[in-house]
């Protein structure tokens, strides 16, 4: 059975409400933020911290500047919370906001450099950034040996079962079973997160 088929079967058996209880939607979190729920804001920050932070990092900013950009982006998000139109597109909105703040930061800290202009001219290095974020989160939900196997497979899709057994300390038969289960879980998790690849 393919992973995709397994995923579809899982989705058919899992009501959307069940999923939303586990991971609240952006709309839910924003609504709770507007009602003064501090934890909802914390969850939003944790959900998108890496996504926002990765934008200035890709543009070549150092750790301190990148964190400054992240603070500015979340400050803007906080101010704009009541006027956000499409919470399901929050990730894309944050990437755009982080890109603009990165350009501002580059112009402030490197006024003579052309890095900011290059970033303005090209948007390619931000392509697929949301998928990268989803993949990281999905990997983070796997357990110990599943995570080791999936990371090893993503590092090298051609890796043999023997090498996986050496990395995990499992027998090769067990590795095959864990590998299949881990990939199914990864696919299911990505699917729940709205993966569109």
């Amino acid at each position, binding site marked *: 059975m393919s992973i995709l088929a397994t995923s579809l079967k899982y989705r058919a058996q899992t009501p959307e409400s069940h999923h939303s209880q586990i991971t609240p939607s952006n709309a839910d979190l924003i609504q709770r933020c507007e009602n003064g729920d501090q934890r909802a804001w914390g969850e939003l920050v944790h959900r998108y911290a890496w996504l926002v932070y990765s934008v200035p990092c890709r543009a070549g900013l150092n750790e301190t500047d990148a964190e400054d950009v992240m603070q500015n982006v979340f400050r803007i998000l906080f101010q704009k919370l009541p006027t956000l139109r499409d919470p399901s597109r929050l990730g894309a909105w944050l990437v755009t906001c982080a890109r603009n703040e990165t350009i501002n930061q580059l112009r402030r800290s490197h006024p003579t450099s052309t890095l900011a202009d290059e970033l303005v001219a090209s948007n390619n290095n931000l392509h697929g950034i949301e998928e990268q*974020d989803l*993949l990281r989160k999905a990997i983070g939900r796997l357990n110990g040996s599943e995570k080791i196997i999936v990371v090893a497979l993503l590092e090298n899709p051609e890796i043999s079962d023997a090498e996986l057994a050496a990395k995990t300390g499992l027998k090769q038969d067990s590795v095959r079973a864990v590998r299949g289960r881990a990939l199914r879980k990864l696919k299911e998790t990505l699917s729940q997160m709205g993966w569109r690849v």
Partner: protein
Amino acid sequence: MNDDLNLKELSRIYHAAKDIENPSPPAITHAIDLFPKRSHHIRWHRGYAFAIAAALIVLLCLFVSVRLALEANPNTLLYQLKRTSESARIALASSPQERLELHLLFAEERIEEGSQVTNDPYAALVALDEYKKELAQVSALINAQDDDAVNQSLAMVVDELGDNAVELTELAQDPPGQGHTLLYRQVVQAMESTQAVLTMTAKKEMRTKPFNAVKAVTCVEFEDAEMEEFASAEPGGEFDEYEDAWSLLPIQFKRDCQ
């Protein structure tokens, strides 16, 4: 395997992301702190601001009402509030002496109210009825308390009730709503109550301060001009001699005291 292609695509995405670390925990904490401090603060202050504003409005209304009630007469709506605030002051008094002084003060206030409502005999009736109640409290305090402080205040009782007696005399001569029998009877009863308390005070004072006692009795006998003059004199003055004062006392009263 069917998933090989997917795995290669995932591998490409993974490699694009793997070199970028997570932001540091302090940076995440700082971002989280952007929200709660500001929001929580605003809500906290808003709630307290409403509560404080409401409390201030209530206090202001209460203050204005009590101020207005201070001038209230028995024929006005705020009179009950005035009496309630007076009762509260008495209840909060820290000593029997303070309670006695308050009852005397309020008794005088009742006579003043009675003389102010000249066009409303029924309001004057209420005021004088309340006057008698105040005197009953004064009498009870003098009788019940063997308190040194209360005993020291007896001179003040004599002075205050002496003034009341004079004012009641004036009311008796020209009562509000002249010709109103019930009101006239009420004024007379108020005078009798005053005389009774004065006599009681005089008997109590006779043992230690005969001059005060004489003064109290002369207040009762306000028909005699010489005695009235004596009543208004202070110790050490023209009538300082105890023997002179004693000679003026009614014989029956002297017998009662001995």
